[in-house]
């Protein structure tokens, strides 16, 4: 298998893009990535687009081919992939495979979603498509509900407190304030968080990521092509995709996701690194408690200590393991299908040394994208390449 590098990145801001269509956002991000890579359109041999709910919310499918057409790309295979919130990460991995296997020398990855035009109930119902609806869905369970239950278990098992979980929110919202692409950066106090409306006990409003519009894109090339470009590439050391239980009740432990644990361990092995070699991680904090569970599942923080590390500042941009310097899903926003691609966009900025929340001497970054009730997961390990 050939080695793969990321040569170009592009992204719209995340937030509200009222009146702009999903394909327009996707084209904007993709055009930026192509220009950034300085790769000609006729070099692109495949397009993979991650999207989750454009069908129910926009009445628009076949986005992959549409975006290629608008970009004036040649007649190449264009594939939309869906894996709920992990759609973007899965699209990325398939592009990596297409290049690694020699099917093409360059590929375009796009992630896109528009959600803010729909009502809260419509969005909740559309997101619930990511559940096993003949098993979990019938009881009226929601995604915040799943993480409310995870929090309850974490608290009972490890003594995790409201204030500790709030430290995750305060950090990510503060990071988001300095990220020009972020939707909802803020300096929050514990009081404001604790007084926000209850969503699914003990989850409150600020524990949940916002509903967002946005798109992100990447140009991937074979590593020898990247070395010839004269630009600073980012090398893909590992790109792993796993499956977890399809039902909430099917998880052996609701406070850990098997798909994340297995994806991380395979990724470390594939990259030939250890968790302590990771300089920063962009992980799937769809809810505050999710960041704590994910950081433990990824082996970055000892089991049960995720909340304490957050409260002690050890996950800040200058901490022992910087988590979500972008602001994460909580502050940057979560246009579902775009998220996995956007996490890699953020990681590339860090590895280029160009992030507004730069982690000092960042050389190795990890991204983690989790879909549905833990049914799909992707973990990537990226390293700064040589020009």
């Amino acid at each position: 298998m050939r080695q793969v590098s990321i040569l170009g990145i592009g992204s719209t801001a995340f937030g509200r893009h009222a009146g702009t269509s999903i394909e327009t956002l996707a084209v904007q991000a993709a055009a930026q990535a192509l220009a950034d890579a300085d790769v000609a359109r006729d070099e692109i041999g495949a397009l993979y687009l991650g999207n989750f709910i454009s069908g129910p919310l926009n009445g628009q499918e076949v986005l992959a081919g549409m975006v290629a057409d608008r970009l004036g790309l040649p007649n190449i295979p264009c594939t939309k992939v869906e894996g709920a919130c992990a759609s973007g990460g899965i699209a990325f991995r398939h592009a990596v495979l297409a290049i690694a296997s020699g099917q093409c020398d360059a590929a375009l990855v796009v992630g896109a979603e528009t959600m803010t035009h729909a009502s809260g109930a419509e969005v909740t119902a559309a997101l619930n498509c990511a559940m096993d609806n003949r098993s979990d869905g019938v009881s009226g369970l929601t995604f915040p509900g799943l993480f409310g239950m995870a929090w309850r278990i974490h608290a009972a098992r490890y003594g995790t407190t409201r204030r500790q979980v709030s430290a995750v929110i305060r950090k990510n919202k503060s990071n988001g304030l300095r990220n020009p692409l972020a939707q909802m950066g803020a300096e929050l106090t514990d009081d404001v968080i604790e007084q926000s409306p209850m969503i699914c006990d003990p989850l409150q409003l600020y524990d949940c990521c916002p509903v967002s519009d946005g798109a992100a894109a990447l140009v991937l090339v074979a590593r020898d092509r990247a070395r010839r470009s004269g630009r600073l590439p980012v090398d893909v050391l590992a790109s792993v995709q796993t499956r977890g239980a399809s039902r909430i009740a099917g998880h052996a432990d609701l406070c850990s996701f098997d798909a994340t644990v297995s994806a991380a361990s395979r990724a470390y092995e594939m990259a030939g690194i250890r968790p302590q070699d990771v300089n920063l991680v962009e992980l799937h904090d769809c809810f505050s408690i999710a960041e704590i569970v994910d950081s433990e599942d990824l082996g970055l923080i000892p089991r049960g200590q995720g909340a304490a590390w957050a409260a002690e500042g050890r996950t800040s941009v200058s901490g022992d393991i910087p988590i979500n310097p972008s602001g994460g899903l909580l502050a940057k926003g979560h246009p579902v299908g775009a998220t996995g691609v956007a996490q890699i966009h953020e990681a590339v900025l860090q590895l280029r040394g160009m992030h507004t929340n730069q982690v000092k001497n960042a050389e190795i970054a990890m991204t983690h994208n989790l879909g549905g009730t833990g049914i799909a997961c992707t973990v990537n390990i990226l390293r700064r390449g040589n020009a």
Partner: protein
Amino acid sequence: MSDATTIPALRCTACGTLDPGPREICAACLSSGLEPVHVEGEGSLVAWTMIRRAPKNFRDEAPYAVCVVELDTAGLRVTGRLLDPAKDLPIGIRVHAIERRNGYSIFEGKSA
């Protein structure tokens, strides 16, 4: 066993594996011989939460408590509802099914 206090499940006629379903074939032995059975609605509370923002088809019912219960029978885990939980209802307590509704059971906590 009455239907209200039991949980519908599937038993493989070939290997005996129990599963809460829905399932088309036995995941253990691939047999298509799955027979509907009812198991005791007794178990322990794995976790619960109170849903205050519900999807549109459940809007009229909110707020309501959902739960995951581990049944005593074969350690089967099911998603259901919890009857009027106290704010600090501890996880791990004993629960039993008291009613069957559209595809799910309602459980009640037993005081220790």
